[in-house]
């Protein structure tokens, strides 16, 4: 467990841990469930020390049964508690798919029962996890009315969005990127803050092309933007941060300014979030577009294990540079 100070930089992982600790401290309704989160402190050690601090009825090690403990979280949430459950890896969320899409997502619509809960899901590749420890399953849920979905890219957003998710009266899926856990650090405010759900953030202002992305891909985009700047191509990077409800206003504002759009994500290309945004841009921003809307995303395959295969699979800086040059020519 980490203690918030204004002077120390914290990692993305520590920011998540801080958010959980501070929310549990300020609101006794908040409790945690998941596999190996208690004694062991979680597969990634996010809840290290929590069991000793909050006790076995606020930090529950569960049987290996995602559907069972997500269902249990739904029940506790309907009674007014604020459960935060951890998927050990986002890939395992498929075991709880039915509880999330049929029960959590529909209860309020069908009969008025609010389900204030959070599912934390460590997602994404680049960590040699192979087909069952690298997935980006957010697309499955993007199509499911009644859920909110967030995916922070920085320590600041990770902490602020998790706090907002815990305080939200709806089921929120919180996709935290494993690749970022210990790779990025930032100074965080010492006072309590949230990042509101439903607000995108322009991580880099630019005038030529809007690059719309989220999660670990934000950092890839920032790297590409520096290279492209040397060629005189000025990228604007819009970090969605929230996938549902999608901040269409910020996306449209950026695209109407630059007149060009690239959509970048780590989830499979077909039927992904980029496809939806491309359709929205065609419907609502057609008159402003000066070139085709381009997508950069992995091929439609499972996430492979072997290093050259995974490197080929994941989007690269060079993919962004190539796409930007193509679009700049219009």
């Amino acid at each position: 467990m980490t203690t918030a100070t204004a002077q120390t930089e914290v990692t993305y992982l520590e920011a998540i841990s801080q958010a959980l600790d501070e929310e549990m401290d300020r609101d006794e309704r908040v409790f945690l469930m998941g596999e190996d989160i208690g004694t062991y402190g979680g597969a990634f050690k996010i809840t290290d020390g929590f069991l000793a601090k909050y006790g076995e009825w606020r930090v529950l090690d569960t049987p290996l049964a995602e559907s069972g403990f997500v269902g249990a979280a739904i029940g506790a949430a309907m009674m007014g508690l604020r459960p935060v459950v951890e998927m050990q890896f986002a890939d395992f969320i498929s075991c709880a798919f039915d509880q999330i899409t049929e029960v959590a997502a529909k209860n309020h619509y069908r009969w008025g029962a609010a389900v204030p809960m959070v599912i934390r899901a460590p997602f994404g590749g680049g960590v040699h996890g192979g087909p069952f420890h690298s997935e980006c399953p957010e697309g499955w849920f993007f199509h499911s009315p009644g859920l909110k979905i967030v995916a922070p890219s920085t320590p600041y957003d990770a902490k602020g969005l998790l706090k907002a998710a815990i305080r939200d009266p709806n089921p929120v899926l919180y996709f935290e990127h494993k690749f970022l856990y210990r790779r990025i650090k930032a100074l965080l405010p010492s006072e309590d803050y949230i990042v509101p759900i439903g607000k995108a953030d322009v991580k880099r202002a630019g005038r030529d092309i809007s690059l719309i992305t989220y999660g670990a891909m934000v950092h890839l985009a920032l790297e590409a933007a520096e290279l492209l700047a040397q060629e005189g191509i000025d990228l604007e990077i819009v970090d969605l941060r929230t996938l549902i409800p999608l901040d269409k206003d910020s996306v449209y504002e950026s695209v109407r300014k630059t007149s060009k759009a690239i959509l970048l994500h780590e989830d499979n290309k077909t039927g992904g979030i980029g496809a939806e945004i491309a359709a929205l841009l065609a419907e609502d921003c057609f008159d402003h577009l000066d070139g085709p809307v381009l997508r950069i995303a992995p091929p439609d395959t499972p996430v492979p294990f072997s290093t050259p295969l995974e490197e080929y699979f994941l989007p690269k800086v060079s993919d962004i540079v190539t796409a930007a040059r193509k679009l700049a020519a219009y």
Partner: protein
Amino acid sequence: MDLANVTRDIKRADLLQMYFYLRLTRTLEDRVTALYRQGRIVGGVYTSHGMEAIAVGYASALERDDVIAPFHRDMGAFLIRGFTPGEVLAHYLGKRTGPSKGKDGNVHMGDLKRGVIGFVSHLADNLPVATGIALSFKIRGERRVVFTGTGDGGTSRGDFHEAMNFAAVRKLPVVFFCNNNQYAYSTPQCLQMAIRDVADRAKAYGMPGEIVDGNDVAAVYLASTRAIALARTGGGPTFLEFKTMRMHGHSEHDPAKYVPRELLEEWKGKDPILKAEYLLNQLDYGDEAYFHEMGERVKKEVEAGLEFAEQSPLPDGPEVLEGVFATEDEVAS
């Protein structure tokens, strides 16, 4: 049923009330079936015909602030929790005055204020949910209990096992039941599991399992009362298998020709209303005149409810857009 046990453990007024709810359930659902056959109710109609004693028995055994996550053949539980025949019929007719305002149909009714969790068609889905409700009682130190169940078919699903296991490990105040009506839609029990008594499944989770005559409202009430008391005093979950028979099709569209006629004939004689009347007669609590009077009373209630439901407005199309997300003031406390 041992009469001495009944007189010792069930108050006369409670038993008479259970009889009333058996009759109200039967009359209401018969009305629903008739409306369906007339084409006035669209969608599915899943009744508890011949199985009314289960919901009436267990719901009568619970305290007011206990929670029920019912099975889809538990109309009696809704009625006992204060859902009126008018609300139920408005719901079936898709009216705005129904508990889901037209968003959902048939027995998919829920209301947190009345302690009833809305049913989910995916059988056994609400068992883990009920486990979490029990967990919330345990975390808060409340002496409340949750009662939940599924059919024989639903006990094949993973959620049934995941819920039973988690509840047993944490000794949560929940009672699980199985409405074993011998068929999962058209599939007989022998093609669903290699055991004869579903109650045997309880052993695997380290909780007591009990076989109960599901057509005997007094037996259901007494077994439920014992299991509820155990759960309320920290003894953890129990699994009750209520043996019964589905006397209609899976849904009212289904003539259920796959069920042997002799089986239905055999179970006709075990009808829960007939059984209750026999018991009341033996105890000298009620006679033919009383049963007739009850029949007239519930008929009036159902007809008044139908009038309310029919006069209620349908929702307007754009109301489809309301209620996808909850607001903070809707969170339970």
